[in-house]
């Protein structure tokens, strides 16, 4: 579903993503783990067509992100690391706007929006201008916005940011169900517990390169560690 072939992205002289090869299969929850500035967000933004690759290629469901960006966006839902929303729209207006941008007719959008709001316990916040949202509510709204239209793939950058343990659990259950139904999830996190709990495979990213890739067990074994946290530290350097 997500494929990177020698993907490279530079910011001036800094190489943020350095010739990365990656293949995320349909129905998989794939975690990108890395320190701050490792290149996870850049990689995800390339898949979301928000950044153009400087070398190599990135493909979503076989579509080139550079040449076929609108079709790629139609397939995906995205939550950025710091989701800023239209503060003067209510949650319902925001989701209706996104439905219209995706070409979903009003009548079809209504039950989808209600379903997403219910899933993330946002029913009461739908009528509130998003100015008034707390950090957690903003994150839940961003998750609802990424999922309400039932995308084929999800790109989630630190999706548990700002969520309390209860909603983190709800999100994990939703993602497992989403993948079980054939959806693909590409998520980034620096919380190894989350990766251990839900990811089918993980890639450890360091200085723009993938330094380890496989199931959690495979990565731990490869690093000679007994848990993912120790494996991560062994691979990217000590605390």
């Amino acid at each position, binding site marked *: 579903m997500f494929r990177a072939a020698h993907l490279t992205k530079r910011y001036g002289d800094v190489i943020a993503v350095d010739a990365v090869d990656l293949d995320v299969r349909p129905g998989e929850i794939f975690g990108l783990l890395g320190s701050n500035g490792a290149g996870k967000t850049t990689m995800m933004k390339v898949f979301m067509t*928000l*950044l153009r690759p400087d070398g190599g290629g990135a493909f979503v469901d076989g579509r080139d992100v550079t040449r076929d960006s609108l079709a790629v966006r139609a397939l995906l839902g995205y939550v950025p690391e710091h989701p800023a929303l*239209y503060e003067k729209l209510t949650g319902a207006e925001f989701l209706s706007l996104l439905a219209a941008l995706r070409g979903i007719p009003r009548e079809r959008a209504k039950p989808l929006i209600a379903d997403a709001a219910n899933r993330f316990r946002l029913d009461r916040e739908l009528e509130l201008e998003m100015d008034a949202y707390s950090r957690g509510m903003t994150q839940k709204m961003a998750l609802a916005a990424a999922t309400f239209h039932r995308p084929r793939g999800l790109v989630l950058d630190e999706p548990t940011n700002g969520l309390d343990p209860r909603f983190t659990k709800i999100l994990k259950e939703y993602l497992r169900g989403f993948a079980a139904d054939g959806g693909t999830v590409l998520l980034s996190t620096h919380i190894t517990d989350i990766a251990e709990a839900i990811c089918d495979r993980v890639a450890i990213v360091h200085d723009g390169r993938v330094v380890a890739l496989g199931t959690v067990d495979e990565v731990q074994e490869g690093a000679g560690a007994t848990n993912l946290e120790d494996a991560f530290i062994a691979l990217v350097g000590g605390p």
Partner: protein
Amino acid sequence: MSFYAVYAADIQDAARALSRRVMRRKSGAVWFGLLFAGTVWLALRLGEISLTIGLPPSLQITPGTLLFLAFFGMLAKGAVDAYHRAIRPESLVFLLAQPMRRESVALGKFLTILWTNLAFLAGALALAVVFVAAGMDVPLPWELGAGLVLAVVAGLASGFAMAVFGSLSSWRRKAAGLAAYSPVIGVAYVALIAANPTLGDAFLAVAALVPLSIAGLLGSSRFLLEAWNNQSAGRRRLGEPRPYVRLPDPQLQALVDLELKTMVRKRQVLLSLATTVIVGVALLGTYAVVGPPVGLPGPFADLFYPIIVAAGVYVVVATQLMVPGMAALGKELDRLWILKSHPVSGRTVYGGKAAAILFLAPPLFVAVALPLPLLAGFRWEVVAFLLAASAAVTFGLVSLGLYVGARNPNLDPNTQGLPDSIAMYNVFLAALFVGFVLFALPAGVYRFDRVLGILAAVLLAAALAFGVFLTSRGGARRYERLEV
């Protein structure tokens, strides 16, 4: 001295941002310098001409009038600057949470606003001195220069206070705050205009206004927290979301609706309407005070009111339609990911932005372009010409704004997506030139043949409407290339 720490950090941040922008576009800075010098020269030259040929006897421009205009202009500028720098930014929380008085926060922020505006004035005064020394015949007494400096201080402080009061949590509190402050403006009007003071007295009056305004600023700082909190207090809106407008393309409708709803709820539409009405009333007031332009040489008498109307149209179009165009892309700030991660083309995004701006245009015609010509009993041909030329200026300046906004989008939250002050100044002057050409070209034809003149203005308006379409296409290309 905690206010100084706030000021020092703020001014350093502003200076570094300015330096980065200048280094990025050196030619823009040079162009700015030339235009700035040209504007000062033009203002002095207009003064020189007015002193030579005289103005209508009923149109008295005294030193007090000049100082009041400076005070009032800076009041508006101070309100906008204070809103963007001291009320709107989320980062203010880091200052409000420190163990220091609100007065220190307000004073520190005010000093930054003051410094940047005084730097402009100092530059203008220095250039004026050079031009006068080089032979321009315009009196430049020291009381006028010093009075202008004081008017800038008093105006900016008053604008700061009014921005705070205007941002309070309910209409009643806003009205109470603004009413409490209104005597300061009343005193300024009475002392500088109604009393018809000499230059010396006007200087003393504006000097007395400074402590009054600073006291108002410090008084308003007690409400700074409420004003800041009110900016992040969303309202509950019950019922089904309803679009403001219906358009055949659902994506375009959704985008226009997003723009309009945001502008309405941020009270930008209200402010725009108020500004438009104020300019319209000012035009009518000019006619009521000055009356028919007797005493002016023949051609000047015929052109006097059409020029006044054209000036009003320029002011409203430039500030209320061109400026939103300049911020069209930049105002998305860190929300740009929303549109960029959805399957909507740049053409639709920019088309929506352009259409939303044009929705704000009709009040211009109702409040500014029509009332004075109707009141003054202009012939229908003149009224038709002014309407068509106003439409041409509207489309021309909206195109200019969209072009600049797409070419140099500014994603700096301090300016809410508007270009930096140097770029803004350059664009306003370019707009003045473009506006002049768009009125003057068909006017030249009109003097030759009235019907052809009207036709020329209509054709120009149609061509420039196509120009809006083309610039929005250009903006779309820029939007597509933008990396988030």
